[in-house]
């Protein structure tokens, strides 16, 4: 919201506090001033008079102007189409600085062989944005209307010596959408006086109009008639205040209405009395009309929930939002009826939002308007229009009953945690125009009618500390009984998972929870998603049920940056089976360890991923045995059916890992991507093995290597199990150190070399005992699995 420093000064004593300092004071008091800037800029601008003008001899668009600036007469070449003899203009003499002009410092120059000593300025060149200007002003220089003293300093004379404070307001302080409410605030902060202002009008309730309020969302409705007006341009001073406030000047009736609204905070709407067909106004809901033509020439659809103003049986306004074209004022208007009303801010906001029509008025009406000052804008209008109203009717509700809010000195100090004198508390509230009664150590405050945000004792405490300032608030630490709440199992699992995987060479990623159907469908098991009713765009409309879609997207994204080797993981929530669960995903592509002069490359594949997962699970205390893997269905939708496995625990599938399905790989043009997804919510509920000392054997173990010929359909886990079970007491470890498929082997067989660790732990085994163990292994393998020793 833009505030004119000069207009503010009209309502409160500013004690020569400059606009920049005022900005800091307001910001520090919680009314954030985003910027302070002069309304217009330019050094040494003077008022000049064009005594003579003639076309430039060598240019078809320049005019040579002989311009009197009192101290001298300057020959200036001007390019504006509207410049001419007998005009008062704003002149920048040589040496003048203009931040907004194309040439920031004005110099004496030769233009087409003619000397030019300065510049005649347009509004744009002195810093007034084009959006506030008429087309003529935008295209040409500013021609001053009226009589002026030649040579006077221009910015002051014309009222451009103002500053704009741009306030960013929090929702609780919508009162500040009124300059007068801001003046109350400033008076409190600076401890200065408000200037006298007439806020009421003589309301005799004599009017030819009748008002019927037919819906409770209209809280108050007044109509004020002004007759025999003359439409004309507003004065310079009024226009400049409007510039500072961010309004485009139009003509006096509109401009004065805007000023009345900005100062009082109450919007007014003005009808052309001669365009009204009836004397009866009614304010109601329940009307539907799809072709309401508004004063902005647009067609709007009015719905049953919109509050409308009816004149007879014609809709003349969507309440608080916009008036009709047919009843609006124009440059020929003579008699007006001004509406000053209070509507339910909820109703207005809903309508304004639906129609996307947030004007200065509807924005104010969408906040809570001060319902006790509906006469204030009319009083202001009388001042600006220079005449009293001719008739009025107001249908009103209860009189203003100020709210009483109590707070004790003790409560103030307890909430703040600091000592503050009770007298100061009382004084601060009084400075902010609160009426205060003091009873011992308690005060009762009656906030000004503008301050609808003050309801509780803590609201008063905030006012006190805000004005007192936070600088001497002490720093203490909360004194409390010690409460011990360790991390939960889930929190620990997440923390450990992140540490283990990042130490295994994986990079953590964090991706968006919202995605789209096409991407999620690839990796979804049941394709049922949580869907937003108001997504920002089609890319992000579903809360994901898997992490793999984003994992693949991230791998693809990094590949586009020529990053071939990727080892990624993510922990995040998903919504699946009707609840929010926490999943872990892993994605591998390229090399896990790069080869160089020293070692061979280790390319990520099923077995690298398997190690990462099972080493990770082992560190959590979950070992193979409790964990099992299972082959996936041959028609699995997203994982390569023969290069993948389910991870199972307690007969439940808690995860899946393997190569992505060749169909998806081909869609994404990615090769050799391996992924995993594990349900951490399930894992968090399981207890893993913990560290426990089991004794160490001092007897050395014996190793025996066996080279076996294995039928193709026998899988490694069966062989390992059979070997182990042949003498589970003496066999400690089995290592598969070679797998070989070759033509010289018997048909449908492959060769597997294993190394078996044999040991008793208590005594050294002799040769016969060891041979017994080996013979047993071979016997069992042969009998149960038809496996033979390779010759």
């Amino acid at each position, binding site marked *: 919201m833009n505030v004119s420093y000069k207009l503010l000064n009209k309502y409160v004593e500013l004690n020569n506090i400059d606009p920049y300092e005022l900005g800091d004071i307001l910001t520090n008091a919680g009314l954030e001033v985003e910027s302070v800037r002069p309304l217009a800029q330019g050094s040494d601008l003077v008022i000049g008079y064009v005594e003579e003008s003639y076309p430039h001899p060598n240019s078809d668009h320049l005019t040579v102007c002989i311009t009197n600036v009192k101290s001298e007469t300057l020959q200036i070449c001007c390019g504006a189409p509207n410049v001419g003899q007998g005009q008062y203009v704003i002149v920048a003499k040589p040496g003048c600085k203009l931040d907004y002009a194309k040439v920031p410092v004005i110099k004496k120059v030769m233009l087409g062989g003619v000397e030019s000593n300065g510049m005649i300025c347009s509004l744009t060149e002195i810093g007034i944005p084009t959006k506030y200007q008429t087309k003529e002003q935008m295209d040409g220089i500013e021609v001053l209307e009226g009589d002026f003293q030649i040579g006077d300093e221009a910015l002051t004379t014309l009222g451009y010596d103002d500053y704009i404070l741009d306030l960013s307001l929090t929702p*609780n302080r919508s009162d500040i959408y009124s300059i007068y409410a801001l003046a109350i605030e400033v008076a409190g902060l600076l401890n200065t006086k408000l200037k006298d202002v007439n806020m009421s009008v003589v309301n005799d309730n004599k009017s030819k109009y009748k008002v019927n309020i037919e819906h409770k969302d209209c809280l108050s409705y007044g109509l004020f008639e002004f007759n025999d007006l003359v439409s004309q341009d507003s004065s310079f001073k009024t226009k400049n205040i409007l510039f500072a406030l961010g309004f485009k000047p139009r003509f006096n009736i509109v401009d004065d209405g805007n000023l009345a609204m900005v100062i009082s905070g109450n919007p007014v709407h003005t009808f052309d009395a001669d365009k009204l067909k009836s004397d009866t106004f009614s304010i109601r809901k329940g009307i539907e009309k799809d072709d309401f033509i508004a004063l902005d020439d647009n067609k709007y659809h009015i719905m049953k929930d919109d509050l409308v103003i009816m004149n007879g049986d014609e809709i003349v306004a969507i309440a608080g939002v916009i008036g009709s074209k047919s009843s609006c004022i124009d440059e020929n208007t003579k008699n007006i009826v001004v509406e000053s009303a209070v509507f339910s801010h909820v109703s207005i906001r809903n309508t304004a939002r639906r129609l996307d029509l947030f004007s200065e008025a509807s924005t104010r009406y969408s906040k809570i308007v001060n319902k006790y000052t509906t006469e204030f804008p009319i009083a202001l209008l009388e001042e600006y229009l220079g005449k009293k109203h001719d008739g009025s009717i107001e249908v009103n509700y209860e009189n203003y009953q100020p709210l009483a809010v109590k707070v004790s000195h003790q409560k103030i100090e307890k*909430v703040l*945690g600091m000592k503050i004198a009770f007298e100061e508390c009382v004084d601060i509230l009084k400075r902010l125009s609160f009426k205060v009664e003091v009873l011992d150590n308690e005060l009762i405050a009656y906030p000004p009618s503008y301050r609808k945000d003050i309801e509780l004792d803590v609201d008063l405490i*905030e006012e006190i500390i805000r004005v007192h300032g936070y600088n001497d608030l002490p720093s203490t630490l909360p004194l409390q009984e010690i409460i011990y709440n360790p991390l939960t199992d889930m929190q620990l699992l997440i923390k450990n998972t992140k*540490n283990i995987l990042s130490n295994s060479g994986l*990079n953590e990623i964090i991706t968006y929870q*919202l995605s789209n159907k096409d991407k999620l469908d690839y990796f979804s098991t049941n394709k049922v998603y949580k869907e937003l009713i108001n997504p920002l765009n089609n890319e992000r409309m579903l809360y994901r049920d898997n992490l793999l879609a984003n994992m693949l997207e991230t791998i693809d994204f990094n590949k586009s940056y020529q990053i071939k080797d990727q080892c990624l993981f993510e922990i995040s929530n998903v919504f699946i089976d009707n609840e929010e669960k926490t999943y872990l995903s892993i994605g591998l592509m390229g*090399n896990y360890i790069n080869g160089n002069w020293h*070692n061979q490359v280790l390319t990520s594949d099923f077995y690298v991923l398997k190690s990462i997962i099972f080493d990770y699970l082992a560190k959590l205390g979950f070992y193979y045995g409790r964990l099992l893997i299972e082959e996936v269905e041959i028609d699995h939708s997203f994982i390569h059916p023969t290069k993948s496995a389910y991870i199972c625990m307690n007969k439940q599938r808690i995860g899946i890992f393997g190569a992505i399905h060749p169909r998806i790989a081909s869609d994404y043009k990615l090769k050799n991507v391996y992924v995993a997804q594990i349900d951490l919510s399930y894992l968090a509920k399981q207890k893993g093995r913990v560290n426990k000392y089991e004794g160490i054997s001092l007897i050395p173990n014996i190793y025996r290597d066996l080279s076996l010929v294995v039928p193709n359909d026998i899988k490694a886990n069966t062989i390992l199990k059979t070997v182990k079970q042949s003498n589970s007491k003496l066999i400690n470890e089995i290592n598969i150190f070679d797998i070989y498929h070759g033509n010289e082997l018997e048909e449908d067989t492959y060769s597997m070399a294993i190394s078996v660790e044999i040991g008793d732990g208590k005594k050294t085994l002799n040769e016969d005992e060891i041979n017994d163990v080996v013979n047993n292994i071979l016997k069992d393998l042969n009998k149960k699995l038809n496996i033979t020793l390779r010759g």
Partner: protein
Amino acid sequence: MLENLKQELTDQINNANSLDELQQVKVKALGKKGSITLLTKNMKDKSIEEKKILGQAVHSLKEYIEIILKQKELFLIDMKIKDDIKKDKIDIFLPGVEFHQGSLHPLTITRNEIEEFFISLGFEVARGNEIESDEYNFEKMNIPKDHPARDMQDTFYFSEEELLRTHTSPMQARIMERNAPDKPIRVIVPGKTFRRDEDDLTHSHQFMQVEGLVIDKNISLADLKGTLELFARKMFGPNTQIRFRPSYFPFTEPSVEVDVTCHICKGKGCSVCKHTGWIEILGAGQVHPNVIKNCGYDPEVYQGFAFGMGIERIAMIKYGVDDVRLFYQNNLNFLKQFDKLK
């Protein structure tokens, strides 16, 4: 004669240049047919008296030779080790094994640092769901329907009643309800939050917050300041100052924005702090009595503070990241810059 032998053997030992040569000398002197061994053997023909004298002489010769043999042997072993070391020299400038360097996401690192600080002050850490109800996200937080503050937080809805949490505050209500009506509370809630904002340099529709809540009978605004002052020093260095500015949040009263001195210019003013010397890091305040009441405590007896900070914002300040979207693009060239523990 013994003297000659002594001299001869000493010379041979001195001249031996390798352990092999020394071994040969040793055999020649002390082996079964060695010169000293033979001397002993030849003594059996001599008289007892002669045996005694000669025996002593041979014994001391043998002792002497053994000592200098040992000395020479130690010398030669040392020589050989030195020699081997020289031959075994590697090029230390060749690269080692290129293990893949893992890393935590910068937001995780920042979040861990924040969590560790508050855990050290005895705070509990709580997690909440990202899909929340309107009741907990708004109503219990003193933001009824049609409250103007709802405009501050544009919300993603799944239905009229179900939404993506716009802040971690709904957990305030859940934790208070769990502890009401009289248990003290000291908790932080880190987690993902969502606002219906277009993504740009400083906005992300998904972001992370850490909520803090302390409730007891005498928890004051000064306690908030002391807690956040320590926090700021932990995150941004021991000389960091903080400042409170009045602000507005529906769920706190009084409400403040908290600024820290710019760690780049140390408060002198630079482009990072827009020449103010201060950087805004979080919003906070005393929990609004309506919230306390909504969640089952008596606001006349219980009071406390709450704060909420954006982890992205803290990470951006700490690491000098200038575009919030980088955190969610997951470019490995970005992520790998955060492979340090801090």
